[in-house]
C-alpha cells in the first residue's frame, strides 16, 4: 500500500503544488488501491482509469500559483451527479447505458479547481435507503467490518474514503445520506445549507430536501472541498445568491471558547445505543473543556419529522422519477414493435426500478392524490414549518445544536432488509435538518465495540462555517487522543 493514499487531501494538494509528487502518481496510487480493494468493498460503480489519468496529466501541466489547494487531488463522485460522457446510474438498472451529455455544476466546479474524478460511487437506488443495500449493483461493504453496511444512501462515497480509495468524495443528503454513512464509516461529511451547493445535475430524489455536500477523512479536507463546490448557480433557482461562509478559515480557527452548544433533548434516550451515547457525552465534555457552554434545548416537533419526511420525499420522488419512461434514454423493455408506448413505459418501469423505489413511488403517488393531498402532503408541509420554527427558537439560545448522528453503529448486511420502518429509523436524527434546510456535519466521535460513532453538529442556514469551527475544535482533541484520524485504526482489509 502506497503511503500516499493515507495522506489527507490538504497534504496531497500541498505536495503536488510544491512538485514533490505529481497528480498522476497520486491518482495512480488511488486507482491501484481501488483495483486491489474494490472487489471486496464494491464502492465504485464505474472506475474511470483513463479519464482520471488524463485529468491528472492535465492538472500536472497546469499546476502553479493561485491554483486551488485541491489541484490535482483525486475524488470519488456519488453516481447521482452527472459527469459528461461518464455513465450515471443512480444505482438503478433503469438508467442503463445513459451517458449524460452535460456536467453537473458540482462537477464543473471540481474540474475548474483541478480535482481529479476517479469514478462514480455506489449508492442506494436513487438515494433511497440507509445501507446501500438497495443498489441494483450489489451492496457496498463497510471497510471497518465487511459484513456490515457502510450506511446509505452514500455508502459508496463513505466506504471509498474509509478504504483509502480516495481522500475526498461527494455525497448527497436528502435525509442523512451524507452524514449517516460518514458516522458509520468513521469519516466526515457535511450537508451544506439547502441552496448552498447547486443541485444542477444532481438527479433528483426529493428536490426540496436534496443537497450535495463534501466528504473526507478530516474536517479541514471537508472544508477545502466545501469551498470548491459551494456558491450561487443561476441554473438552480433554489440556489442562494450570497457569499459562501469562509469554511476553511473556520476549520483552521476551530475555537469554541464562549460558544453556546445546544444538546437536542429529543435526539437522545430510547433507541440510542449505550456506546453511541457514551462517545457523544465524551465529545461534549471535550467541547466544554475547550470553553463552550453546553445547554440542553428542546425541539418538540422533531418527533413528527420522520413521518413528515416519508410523505414529502416520496411525493416529490413520485413526480421526479416519472421521467424514467424508456422514451429518451436508459433502459427500454418490451419494445418489440407490437406494444404501445404506454405498455413499453409500464414494462420498463416494472423491470427497471427496485422494490424500495417502487414502494416510495406508490407511497408518494397516493399521498398526492386528490382527496388525500391535504391530509398527507399538506399536513407534512405544516410539520415542516413547525420543525423550522423549533430550529429558529433553539438558535435564539445557542450557536449550534448537537446530537449523535445515528442511534446505532453499522448494522449487519441484511439485518433490516425486511423491515423498512426499522431501516427508516437510522435517519431519525438527521432528517429534521433536511426538513428545515439548515447545515449539518457528522464527524467521528470514537468507536463502540470496534465500530465508528458519529457526532452531529447542526448550524443555522448559511452559517455553515460554525460546523467547521466546532468540528475542527473537537477533531483536534480527538486526533490528539487517537494519534491521527480515526480511519487510521481501521483493521487491515482482508482482500478477497
Amino acid at each position, binding site marked *: 500500500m502506497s503511503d500516499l493514499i493515507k495522506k489527507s487531501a490538504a497534504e496531497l494538494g500541498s505536495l503536488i503544488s510544491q512538485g514533490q509528487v505529481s497528480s498522476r502518481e497520486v491518482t495512480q496510487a488511488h486507482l491501484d488501491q481501488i483495483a486491489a480493494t474494490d472487489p471486496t468493498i464494491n464502492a465504485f460503480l464505474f472506475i474511470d482509469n483513463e479519464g482520471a489519468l488524463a485529468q491528472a496529466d492535465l492538472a500536472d501541466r497546469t499546476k502553479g500559483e493561485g491554483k486551488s489547494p485541491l489541484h490535482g487531488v483525486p475524488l470519488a463522485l456519488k453516481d447521482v451527479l*452527472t459527469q459528461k460522457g461518464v455513465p450515471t446510474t443512480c444505482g438503478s438498472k433503469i438508467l442503463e447505458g445513459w451517458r449524460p451529455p452535460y456536467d453537473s455544476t458540482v462537477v464543473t466546479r471540481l474540474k475548474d479547481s483541478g480535482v481529479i474524478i476517479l469514478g462514480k460511487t455506489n449508492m442506494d437506488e436513487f438515494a433511497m435507503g440507509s445501507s446501500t443495500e438497495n443498489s441494483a449493483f450489489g451492496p457496498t461493504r463497510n471497510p471497518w467490518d465487511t459484513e456490515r453496511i457502510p450506511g446509505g444512501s452514500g455508502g459508496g462515497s463513505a466506504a471509498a474514503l474509509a478504504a483509502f480509495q480516495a481522500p475526498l468524495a461527494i455525497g448527497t443528503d436528502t435525509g442523512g445520506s451524507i452524514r449517516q454513512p460518514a458516522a458509520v464509516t468513521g469519516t466526515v461529511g457535511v450537508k451544506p445549507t439547502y441552496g448552498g451547493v447547486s443541485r444542477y445535475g444532481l438527479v433528483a430524489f426529493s428536490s426540496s430536501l436534496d443537497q450535495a455536500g463534501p466528504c473526507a477523512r478530516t474536517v479541514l479536507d471537508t472544508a477545502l472541498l466545501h469551498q470548491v463546490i459551494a456558491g450561487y448557480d443561476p441554473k438552480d433557482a433554489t440556489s442562494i445568491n450570497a457569499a459562501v461562509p469562509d469554511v476553511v478559515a473556520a476549520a483552521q480557527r476551530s475555537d469554541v471558547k464562549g460558544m453556546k452548544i445546544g444538546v437536542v433533548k429529543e435526539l437522545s434516550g430510547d433507541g440510542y445505543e449505550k456506546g453511541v451515547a457514551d462517545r457523544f457525552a465524551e465529545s461534549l465534555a471535550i467541547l466544554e473543556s475547550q470553553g463552550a457552554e453546553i445547554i440542553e434545548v428542546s425541539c418538540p416537533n422533531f418527533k413528527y419529522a420522520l413521518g413528515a419526511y416519508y410523505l414529502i420525499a416520496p411525493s416529490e420522488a413520485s413526480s421526479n422519477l416519472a421521467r424514467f419512461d424508456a422514451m429518451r*434514454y436508459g433502459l427500454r423493455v418490451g419494445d418489440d414493435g407490437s406494444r404501445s*408506448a404506454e405498455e413499453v413505459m409500464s414494462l420498463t418501469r416494472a423491470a427497471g426500478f427496485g422494490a424500495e423505489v417502487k414502494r416510495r413511488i406508490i407511497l408518494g403517488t397516493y399521498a398526492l392524490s386528490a382527496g388525500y393531498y391535504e391530509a398527507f402532503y399538506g399536513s407534512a408541509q405544516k410539520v415542516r414549518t413547525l420543525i423550522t420554527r423549533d430550529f429558529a427558537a433553539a438558535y435564539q439560545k445557542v450557536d449550534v445544536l448537537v446530537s449523535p448522528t445515528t442511534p446505532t453503529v453499522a448494522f449487519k448486511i441484511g439485518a433490516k432488509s425486511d423491515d423498512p420502518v426499522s431501516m427508516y429509523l437510522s435517519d431519525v436524527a438527521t432528517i429534521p435538518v433536511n426538513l428545515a434546510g439548515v447545515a449539518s456535519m457528522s464527524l467521528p466521535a470514537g468507536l463502540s465495540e470496534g465500530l465508528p460513532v458519529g457526532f452531529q453538529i447542526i448550524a443555522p442556514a448559511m452559517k455553515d462555517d460554525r460546523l467547521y469551527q466546532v468540528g475542527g475544535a473537537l477533531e483536534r482533541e480527538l486526533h490528539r487522543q487517537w494519534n491521527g484520524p480515526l480511519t487510521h485504526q481501521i483493521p487491515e482489509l482482508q482482500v478477497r
Partner: protein
Amino acid sequence: MALSYEEVVAKYEPSLGLEVHVELNTETKMFCGCATTFGAAPNTQTCPVCLGMPGALPFVNEKAIESTIRIGLALNCAITPISRFARKNYFYPDMPKNFQISQYDEPICTNGYLDVDVETDEGLQTFRIEIERVHMEEDTGKSLHVGGATGRIHGAEYSLLDYNRAGIPLVEIVTKVVSGTGKYAPEVAKAYVKELRDILRALGVSDVKMEQGSLRCDANVSLAPIGSGKLGTRSETKNVNSLRSVERAVRGEMIRHAGLLEKGERVIQETRHFQEDSGTTRSGRSKEQAEDYRYFPEPDLTPVAPDAGWIEKLRSQLPEKPSMRRARLQTLWQVPDKEMAAMVNAGAVDLVEETVALGADPTKARGWWLGEISRLANEAEVELININISPKDVARIVELITAGELTDKLARQVVAAVIAGEGDPDTVISTKGIKVVSDESALIAAIERAIAEQPETADKVRNGHLPAAGALIGAVMKETKGQADAARVRELLLGLLGQA
C-alpha cells in the same frame, strides 16, 4: 328529430367557457435557453433542461413573466403578489418529464374581464366576458403518428417525437362561465377570441397564429332548458384552429347537445375534437372520471413575486386598447360605421394603419386592402393578415398610382404578382416591363389608327358628341394593352378631333 338552430335557442340557454392557450413569442423557452423558432428540424432546439434529462433544472424566463403580467393587465386582472408554479403529473410520451410545469391554485393573474361587441338584432351589443385566471405553463413536444389510415395514434405503425416545442412558454387564459348570450353564443365566442387575439397582437407578446397553433382555443359548451337556472353537462372541444371554427364549433355543439337532450339522452362530459371539413366534432377521451393530476408546488422553482413598482411600470406602458384605437382611427380616417366594421371583420385595421403610416391616403389604403387584396385572400382561402403582401408594398403601389406611373388596372397586376411571390412592386414592374405608356408619338399613332378604323364615330366627336369618344379611347387602350393613361388618351384624342 334534429332541431334547427332557431329551435335550439328557443328552448335552451347555452353557457360557454373558453380556454385560450397562447404561445409567447419569447426568443428562448420558458425554463431554458433554447430557441423557439417555428418549423426548425425536429429535436434541434433542445437541451438537457427541456428534454427533462436526469438532474437538469428549470430556471424561469423573466421575459415570459413580463409578457404574462402584461396580458393580465390588459385583461383587467389582479396580479397575484406571490404566485407559484406547480407540477401537473401525467404520463405522455411527448412530455419529457411526465409532468408539466404549470400553475394551479396560485396563478399569476386573476379576476379580469374583456368587453366584446357583437352585432345583434337590436344593433351593436357589448358582452362582458369575465376572466377567471391567466397562468403560465410550458408547452409539450409533438407526436407524429406514422402509418395507419388516420394519422392518429390508434392503428399507427410507430410514432416520432419532436421536442422542439417542449418548454415553449404558454399562457392559458380561462374565462368564467359565460351565460346570458342566448342565441348569440357562437358570435360572442368568436368575438371574444378575436378581441383577445387583437389585444395579444397589440401587446406584441405572441404571433397569435391560430393555424400554426400559437393561439389555440378550447370551447366548453353546455345547454340547459331556458329558465331552469342550472348548468348542463359540458363538452370541451379542442382543435379549433380559426376564428370561423370557434363560431362553428360552438354552434355545432349546441345543436348536437340539443339533439341528445331531445331524445332523452344525456350529454357525456368529454373532450371532443373539431373537424374542420365537416364542422362537427368527434369524441376524444372521456372525462367522466376526472383525471387526477396530483398537483403540488414545483419544488425546483421559487415563488414568483413581481415587484409592485415593476407592475405599475408595465401597466403604464400598455398599448392602447384595440377598441379605443378603433374608435380613434375611425374618427381620424372619417370612416362610416359600417365600413369600419367591415375593416375590423376583415382584420384590416392594422394593415391599413401601417399603410397610412407609410404615407398612403387612408381612403385609398382602405380601398386596396378591403377590395382587390381581400378578394385575392378569399380566393386563396387565407386570412388577410397572412397574405403575401405588406403594407409597405401597398403604400408603394398607391404612391406609384398617385404619381401617374401606374393605372388602377396595372396596379392590380402588380398586386397579384407581389402576392404570387415575384418580388416587391418595383421589382415586379421592372421585370414584367409594366409601365404607363407615355411615349406620345406612339400613343398619337395609336389614336390616329383608331380614328381611321372608326371614321363615323370620329365624326360624331368632331360634331361635339363627346360621349362617342369612349369607343375610340377603348380601342386605344385595347391596343396598348391597358398601359396607356386613359385620361391622357382622351386629351390627345379630343385635341386631334378639334374638341380640346
